[in-house]
């Protein structure tokens, strides 16, 4: 087998530099399937080639969505190939013939993982989830369940379940997004609050959001012009002089 670095390099260029020039692209089938099965970043990268095979060469891939579902873990929001992965996931989930339970499971898992995501990923994934709701109106019970039980002691969704059909996602609600309405970044909080209202008909364009970086966000915030600057009214009494200052408990100025 190939070393990891080379593996990644090959997979990155495979879909647009290798596959189109092959007489029998289906020969790559085994290679890609193996790569897809490895897990982690390599699986993410193998997705692209697999997609071409499935889409243009009639490759039948059993349990494709199950595999995709299991690819979702906390690192997807942090890895370098985030944009590519979400672009493909968007493609895979764009079909309106997918069963509701599957899409709901994806939505629920993505939003559960979003609880550990950095703001730039959140700004991308929330519109992504909104788009899924638009494509699959049957999933809207996740944000709107008027006749449901008043109080539950447990989230019905089972995170550890490998099989999307048995994750009971459709019985759950998107409490994660509700939590994100309290996110410290104002744009994330606003984006999350969109789900409180019923959604508009038009899908959001997320292609611009895929490549978003923290530095861009930071730059945008710094360049905003403020009309006036609110000030702290509590009188300063030294570096750690605030009331109940956490620092005073654990750090000393020496």
């Amino acid at each position: 087998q190939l070393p990891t670095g080379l593996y990644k390099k090959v997979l990155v260029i495979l879909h647009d530099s290798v596959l189109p020039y092959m007489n029998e692209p289906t020969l790559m089938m085994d290679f890609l399937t193996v790569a897809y099965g490895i897990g982690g970043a390599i699986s993410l990268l193998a997705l692209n080639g697999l997609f071409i095979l499935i889409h243009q060469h009639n490759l039948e891939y059993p349990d494709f969505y199950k595999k995709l579902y299991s690819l979702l873990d906390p690192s997807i929001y942090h890895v370098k190939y985030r944009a590519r992965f979400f672009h493909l996931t968007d493609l895979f989930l764009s079909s309106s013939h997918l069963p509701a339970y599957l899409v709901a499971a994806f939505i629920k898992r993505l939003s559960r993982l979003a609880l550990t995501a950095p703001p730039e990923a959140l700004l991308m994934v929330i519109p992504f989830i909104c788009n899924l709701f638009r494509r699959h109106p049957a999933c809207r019970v996740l944000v709107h369940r008027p006749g449901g039980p008043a109080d539950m002691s447990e989230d019905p969704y089972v995170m550890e379940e490998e099989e999307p059909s048995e994750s009971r996602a459709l019985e759950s609600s998107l409490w994660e997004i509700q939590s994100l309405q309290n996110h410290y970044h104002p744009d994330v909080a606003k984006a999350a609050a969109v789900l409180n209202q019923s959604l508009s008909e038009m899908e959001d364009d997320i292609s611009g959001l895929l490549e978003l970086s923290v530095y861009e966000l930071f730059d945008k915030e710094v360049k905003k012009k403020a009309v006036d600057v609110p000030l702290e009214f509590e009188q300063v009494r030294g570096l750690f002089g605030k009331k109940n200052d956490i620092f005073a408990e654990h750090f000393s100025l020496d």
Partner: protein
Amino acid sequence: SNPFEVKVNRQKFDILGRKTKNDVGLPGVSRSKAIKKRNQTLLKEYKEREKTNVFKDKRFGEYNTKITPEEKMIRRFALERQQNYGKKNIYNLNEDEELTHYGQSLAEIEKLNDIVDSDSDTEERGTLSAELTAAHFGGGGGLLRKKVSSEQQDEEEEKPKSRKELIEEMIAKSKQEKQERQTRRESALELTEKLDKDWKEIQTLIARKTPKSERKDKEVEKPKPDEYDMIVRELGFEMKAKPSERLKTEEELAKEEQARLQKLEADRLRRMRGINEQANKKRPSHMSADDLADGFILDKDDRRLLSYKDGKINIENEEEKEEEEGEEEEEEEGEEEDDNEEESQEESAGEDEEDDAADSHSDLESDLESEEEAAGNKEGKKHKANENESQNVEKLDPKSEAAKSELPYTFAVPESYETFKSLLAGRTVEQQLVILERVQKCNHPSLAVGNKAKLEKLFGFLLEYIGELATLDLPELRTIDKLVLPLYNLCQMFPEAASDSIKFILRDAAHDLEEVIEVKGRAAFPGLDTLIYLKIISLLFPTSDFWHPVVTPAFMYMSQLLTKCRITTLQDVIKGLFICCLFLEYVSLSKRFVPELINFLLGVLHISLPKNQAQGYTVVHPFTPVGKNLELLFVCDKEDLKSWEKQNVPLSIVTRLKETSKTEINHIRLSCLALCFDLIKKCAALYESLPSFHEIMHPVRILLTQHVPVNEYPEKMQEWYHSALKELENKVKHYTPLICEKKKPVPLKQYTPKIVKVLEFGRKQAGSKKEQERKQLIQRHKRELKGAIREIRKDNQYLARMQLSEIMERDSARKRKVKELLGSLATQEGEWKAMKRKKWKS
């Protein structure tokens, strides 16, 4: 008039009640009128078209019909005299100076001395009235006339002529009389004043002798007319003058302060929720310049009242605790104050000052200070000052200020960072504070125009200086701790400039980070100065706002630090934990969710475990399940575990980890772990209300319950651990299904008929009032234009007619002349022929 000259405008329909102006026209009349008018204006112009000279009559009142001819003559005469008056005296220099007394020339007074003094009717007075009578009635008694005639016979002859002169004389004399009366009145006034004075002198004598019944009333005032009276009156005046400046009681002050703080707090809450209300954006009231000047007293008030406020507002978490603490603080402060008062009293006793103890001691102290400065005995002062400093260093004590009297009192604002540094170089912290305060006071923006920009620069310098202090090999954090105060004051004065300079620093830091990440792929944590800056931001700006120009970028930057910076050493862990503390502090009021914070704490717990643990959780970037930074906080030495005591982590470690023994490093590791436990506990308390609290804390809980080797930890650490775990486990699981907010039904579009009032038929009424006015104006303009064109046309016709008639006149005159000439020639010829015939005949 003649019915043939009348033109009738026939109406097609007769309408009842309509009044028409132009029923009947009189073309003949109007034409003649127009011609007449043109004769007067246009014709005149036409005739004078080649003449440039104009005749102007400048005689007085020539065209004024309102003045009678006689009056006109008089005025003209007066004018002439006025004109001539100045001319006469051109070369007579002394004539202008006229000495006056009470607005009356002295020369005249001398002349008429007799008249002024004489009260009775003298002959001269008689003559005056006689002259009057003469003027009005053309002469009176014979005696007078005789006199006059005897005096001046010539005048008599000229009498009928010089009537005007007479009148003038009369006027002059009446004026004199007026002046006399005035002088008399003034002298009378003087006399009465004199009389008053005399009366006052006597009055006191009389008052002494008034009977007792009357004296009782006056007893209050009279016995000591000097001091007591004065005091009473002064008091009265004072009461009247400043009813509003009454010293407020402490309760009132407290109430006011509380109201102010409540308002500020409400404002803060509004910003926290991100409600945009441009209308009631308010600045803190203590931004005014005056407040800064006497920050000494305000400082104290703020402290006490803030503890009230916190007790009230932070009801949800640990209300009781806080209140207790607040009370403690109050007590402490009370003690402090007591101390101060005692001191001041002692000192005042030393100075032999007899003042009320009720006076606020700050006043007293400042008084003392000034006195001492005047006295200039520095030795004793320094001693006292040192004592004071040791007692409460926090405050800017006037004593210490006095002690630094060798510092100059005025400072120019440094123009560059180098001069700023040299200004503070070699001074102690207190001296630096005094210098900064004096720089601020001497260059207050209200004193000169350019001061604002200078002081704004000063903020930047101070920030830079703090950064430099923090990057020193041995960071002077104590100094920074003090320097935060002037920084805060400057920030309150110039929020925009302060936010700009802090943003600048943040941008630089973020830029550096981004560059390093792009080049190397990973970055290291920044230095202590950046951490200090982030901490200062939380002191200067409200971190609970939904969006804030400074705080939001700071959030972004900290998030970047926690996710992008790799963790390889113990210092990195400490820095990371410092940033975690910052995050917690930033969101302590707003309770906003920070995923990076939880991730990082999870990672810190992860690296405190021995390797090869069974995983039930996933750590994310910058921590990895396998790799170099594992076991960074892992302590296995039993001895070190036992001897550990919880200690505060000194921040200087961040820049320079001393070559300490392994035991000490292990102790620091354990302290970090304890800090981590505490932070987890605080996070749990903070995020309790989030709907997916359990999901957020799930990995942390698994790690705590399943992997942490609790039993190996010392007892203190176990306490930390259990309190954190308790906070996590204690929460009820509570889920309610989400329900969308109900959309407001959008009303159907309806087309209601438009109703327009019809005031009068047959008139155009479309459009609004404005439109109507515009139409009216356009119509009027059209009408005027038409009229003007018609008039001009008629003028031209008239002029052409005039020219034609002129030409005809000229032609006819020529014809006549030619005829005449021909006639005369014919007669000449005839005569000549007749002569010829005669000659022939004869």
